[in-house]
């Protein structure tokens, strides 16, 4: 237990640090991300704590601003997934049998294409760029989230007091908002966290594949992609953003796990 609590604390600390660093990026560095500040692959010196990247730009600045882009893009994508998927799940549960079957059909057919491939497909349709990736990852995660959200809502619906509320004449929308949503919250919260991790992985994977467009403006996945050419002579170009990505995903996983575990009741 203590070990688990420790790892959750580390995860929380990492997430807080990363978010704070991304938010306060302009305060933490004096260099921009566009202008070279020295020779390519120069080693660390005063003012450039991590040295320069493959084109001579300050690596520290690029990591900070890159985190901003990765975290922001994946947060937007996850928000899209949660809102769309949650809404679909809710509508399926309160909308009656036909609506439920229709939603299920769409969701299941979308699930026959693995999420990342679905996102790739959407990027193919819309053209490669970071906004497209946000949209594609957001839509790509929605079917899976919808299915799990529907289950959570269904469990909530069986509670007798909801049936009672319906019997008393509360409208479907009202039941959905006043009862189903708060009831399912303990399940939806860790689910949303898990899908944030998924969005983050999806976003950085697609940008790593070179689908993000402009490489001047850093993003962790794109930075890994650009650094690949120097994999053997300057591995830190790949592994600093790579480690940041891995740490973030592991941390969000750990937090989602902690959210999902029922809090010990006093009687236990």
């Amino acid at each position, binding site marked *: 237990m203590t070990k688990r609590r420790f790892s959750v604390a580390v995860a929380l600390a990492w997430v807080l640090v990363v978010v704070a660093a991304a938010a306060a990026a302009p305060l933490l560095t004096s260099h921009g991300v*566009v202008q*070279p500040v020295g*020779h390519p692959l120069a080693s660390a010196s005063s003012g450039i704590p991590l040295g320069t990247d493959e*084109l001579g730009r300050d690596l520290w600045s690029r990591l900070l601003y890159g985190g901003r882009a990765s975290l922001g893009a994946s947060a937007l994508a996850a928000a899209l997934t949660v809102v769309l998927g949650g809404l679909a799940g809710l509508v399926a549960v309160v909308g009656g049998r036909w609506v439920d079957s229709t939603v299920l059909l769409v969701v299941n057919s979308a699930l026959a294409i693995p999420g990342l491939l679905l996102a790739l497909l959407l990027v193919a349709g819309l*053209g490669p760029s970071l906004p497209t990736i946000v949209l594609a990852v957001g839509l790509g995660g929605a079917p899976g989230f919808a299915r799990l959200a529907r289950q959570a809502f269904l469990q909530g619906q069986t509670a007798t007091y909801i049936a009672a509320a319906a019997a008393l004449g509360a409208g479907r929308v009202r039941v959905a908002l006043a009862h189903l949503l708060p009831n399912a919250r303990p399940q939806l919260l860790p689910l949303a966290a898990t899908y944030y991790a998924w969005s983050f992985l999806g976003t950085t994977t697609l940008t790593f594949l070179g689908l993000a467009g*402009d490489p*001047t403006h850093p993003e962790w996945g794109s930075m890994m992609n650009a650094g690949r*050419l*120097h994999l053997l002579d300057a591995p830190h170009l790949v592994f600093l953003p790579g480690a940041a990505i891995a740490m973030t995903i592991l941390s969000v996983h750990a937090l989602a796990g902690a959210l999902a575990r029922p809090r010990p009741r006093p009687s236990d």
Partner: protein
Amino acid sequence: MNRSTMRLLRGAACAVAAAVVSACAAPTPPPTSVVYGLTLSPTGIDPHLNASAELGIPLTSVYDTLVVQDPLTGDFLPSLASSWTMSDDGLSYTFHLRSDVRFHDGEPFDAEAVRANIDYILDPDNHSQKAVFMLGPLERVEVIDPTTVVFHLKAPYPPLLDSLAQVYLGMASPKALATWGPSDYQFHQVGTGPFRFVEFVPNDHLTLVRNPDYAWGPSIYQHATAQVETVTFRFYTEPATRALAVENGDVDILGEIPPHDAQRLAGEGIGVTPVTIPGQPLQFLLNTKRPPTDELDARRALLLALDRPAIVQAVFGDTSPVAQGLLSGLGLASSSLPEHDQAEAERLLTDSGWLMGTDGVRHRDGQTLELTIVAPSWGNNPEVGQLLEAAWEALGAQVELQIAPSFGQLKEAQEKGDYNAIGINFFGTDPDLLRPMFASDGVYNWTGYRDLLLDDLLRRGGSSAISPGERQALYGQATQIVLNQVLVLPIRDYVNLVASSPRIHELRFSYTGWFPLLIDLEIGS
């Protein structure tokens, strides 16, 4: 007498007798073998049908072409055709063929074979991706007699000889073409060249073995037959680990070494040869149809703001020459481009009304100095594009960089017209390359610039009936106009960095720069 001396004597005896007694050649050559690394794994390698540049590296040695280009001067020399003439109207070329040539399968090479090859390429069902376009306005091939063939054109087409010198129009055995058909011929290729095609296992290897009967090589080859027994091609598609493969002796020859690795390899005694690729340098065209690059002063300012040697140094290290003109490797006089002059660049912009605001961005009459760069995703263009962005941002412009992942998307961006600078360049061995890009009606006139004098110079330069000296002068004048108008930002002349292990000697390349002349390859101790 030790064994190697024996072999030497036998070899000498056979060299004398080779022309008559081909059977003798079989046991003679020492069982030498070379591993040649390819940098991408082509999906199809039928030279008549597929377009990959990579396929030419092995197959240039499997096929002979009607004519060849001198590797140094680019002059056209006889090969399968011992002589040729062009009609005065430029509409027909008559080729007189050698009669002593046999395909690797024993079939004789003759005029019918030429016609069969061209028909195979022209057949729309075969979906040729490159060769058919290289034939231009070719109408048909007429067989006069077994050693005479005439190419009839619908319109004059000066690049025909250039095309016929390339492996994509190499002569394949009509019997093999008919036997295997367009989907399988690539695995059973039969030519007349110094090496026979043994096998191609996609994504794994391709093997060539010496053709002992080869006796009709063009004069550009130093040897009569190949000096190594087998050449095995393997694929090294991951750029980061290419140098490692050479260092460890896993491969003897490997091209397209990343520049920073080339420097390290050279330090370890492994030869890295920069092979010049003739044609246009890595360059960005400026759009004269869209503000602010529609004004000459703005274009000049953008050029002056670039420290081109620093950009080349940052992206390509010490191994690449800074571009000095519109074409490289073609023997044209290099022209001088202005050096980096930040103060002058700033002055030009300020004088033309672009005033620096407090936000670090220049404005004029309420408009922001905005620039859009479109860079292709290949050939280090994105890296150069990022440094252009940095340089112009420092000048006070708001810059957007777009990456076009394929030629189609590059062209799409160009058609929309929302760009100020766009990266594009073509390789080629004829200065006529300039015409499609800088003539008013050129297919690749992406600068949008129109100039009757320039059109006239390029037209006269491209016509066939003109002396080399006159040509030089015409292209010199044309280049001056293009540079004075700052239609293009030339950055770096192309070189292919080829690493080879110390035991490899006499590694030479065709005039196009990409294809090795494997027949002359020698192995030392």
